């Protein structure tokens, strides 16, 4: 049974090891890169450290109307994000699931508000929705004024946050294997049921991230709001008003309030998406 020989190949082990490049300045370079990275991070973090240092912790006191602004901000942001989800989800789904000639035009349309600086966006909105504009005038006749009204405030928040939500939701939908949706169809489920029971749960983390982003954007929207909806006053405009009326001391409490309200949702989403740590 042992007549079949094994080829003796092990002699090759003597090949020289020296032909491989030495580690030269590699370690040094690694340190330089790491230093750059850390410096960058520190740099980004500095102003927040500065805020902690500068805040007069003993005298943090809300101004009159600050709580009202909080209520306005939270209330309308919830509404705005809901609306954005309402119309942004179909748009995102469409972008994720269909491909057609001229799709780039649609993509561009979605991205335009994101690429327009907020101040300019505010001006554009006045041009279209202002009381004497081509759209605002007929709307005004219907009793819908879009300057300094809750509707205008929503409008500003929606334009400020919708593109972010759509982009995030689109990639969340793209992350759902089409296989699973097709399977659901072959199992006799309608496309509608498939969407609610399969696509939505499977993209929920990505959608959550999109909602968190939209939330932060809508809550913090300032440039657009300043132009078309000075009223009702939400936190960012109130920040500005406080700054003008009372000065910096009135800004600190509002700033911390803002962080307190704005950050939990994104942090929660971040924590959730990190949990099943299965990036392979």
């Amino acid at each position, binding site marked *: 049974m042992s007549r079949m020989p094994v080829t003796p190949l092990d002699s090759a082990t003597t090949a020289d090891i020296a032909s491989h490049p030495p580690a030269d300045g590699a370690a040094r370079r690694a340190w330089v890169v790491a230093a750059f990275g850390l410096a960058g991070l520190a740099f980004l973090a500095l102003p927040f450290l500065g805020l902690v240092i*500068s805040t007069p912790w003993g005298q943090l006191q809300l101004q*009159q*109307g600050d709580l009202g602004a909080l209520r306005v901000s939270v209330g309308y942001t919830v509404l705005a994000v809901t609306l954005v989800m309402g119309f942004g989800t179909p748009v995102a789904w469409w972008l994720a699931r269909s491909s057609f000639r001229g799709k780039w035009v649609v993509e561009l349309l979605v991205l335009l508000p994101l690429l327009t600086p907020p101040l300019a966006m505010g*001006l554009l909105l*006045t041009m279209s929705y*202002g*009381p*004497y504009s081509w759209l605002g005038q007929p709307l005004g006749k219907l009793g819908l004024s879009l*300057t*300094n009204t809750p509707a205008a405030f929503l409008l500003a928040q929606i334009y400020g946050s919708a593109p972010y939500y759509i982009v995030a939701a689109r990639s969340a939908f793209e992350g759902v294997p089409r296989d699973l949706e097709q399977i659901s169809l072959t199992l006799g489920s309608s496309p509608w049921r498939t969407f609610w029971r399969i696509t939505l749960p499977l993209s929920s983390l990505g959608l959550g991230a999109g909602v968190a982003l939209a939330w932060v954007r809508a809550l913090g929207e300032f440039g657009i709001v300043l*132009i078309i909806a*000075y*009223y009702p006053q939400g936190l960012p405009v109130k920040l*500005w*008003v406080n*700054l*003008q*009326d*009372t*000065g*910096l*001391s009135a*800004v600190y409490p509002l700033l911390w309030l803002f962080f307190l309200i704005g950050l939990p949702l994104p942090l929660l989403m971040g924590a959730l998406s990190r949990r099943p740590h299965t990036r392979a």
Partner: protein
Amino acid sequence: AEPVLKVAYAGSMGALMDKALGPAIQQQAHVQYQGQGAGAYGLARLLAAKQISADVFVSITPGPMQVLQKAGLVGVAVPVASTQMVIAYSPQSRYAKDFEAAAAGRTPWYEVLQKPGVKFGRTDPKTDPQGRNIVFAMLLAQTYYKQPGLAKAILGPVVNPSQIFAEPSLLSRLESGQIDASSGYLSAVISHKLPYIRLPNEINLSDPNLAATWYDKAHFDITQPDGKTETLSTQPLVFYAAVLKNAPNPKAGEAFIKLMRSPQGQAMFKRYGYSEPKGGDLR
């Protein structure tokens, strides 16, 4: 809901409007007060272009109001209060002691401002009346104190990038101690609770009586956006108010102007550091 009263006002009036006049008119006229404060010229231009709407416009100096008059949106504007230019300074400044001395009249303020390293702040003379007024004040001081070159020494060129800040950030810069001193209206400086140096009437632009004989001697040139050079003259630091012709709620607007001119309103102005209205109506 209650009808809305929209007031557009020069940004420096924020504290008075939002904390005193606004609440008062809400009670009196049963309206919902909505104030919008920003650079007076900016607001006037937005109103003139019908980008925003308001019932009442309150301007500082006649200039912005005249923009609306030219646009046919305002007829007669009435004076409601006045103020004066002061030099505000930061209590944390290295030179705070010197400023204190100047405020007490022990040293000339213009010498403190000329100390090397003093950081002075003001607003954009192109877009903000206050930015123009501080230039006039310095030009007048130059003559008044017989100190040729004083304006140039303190301000540098009219458009001096190291001194000019956006209006909303100017006083908060001072508060956070990031500049040593800045121009300011007495009223705004008081509501920000900042220490300040009063200027003589001949410099602080508050007295319409001095306009023809004294203030009008100050001129400076500024380049218009269209490239033409315009020579500017002083305008008295008077606040004018008017109801706009396209006001959605003119009745409430009238009520608001009435309130401002009433003794009750004037008391509020006074409490926030404003002086009584000076001069006649603006036609």
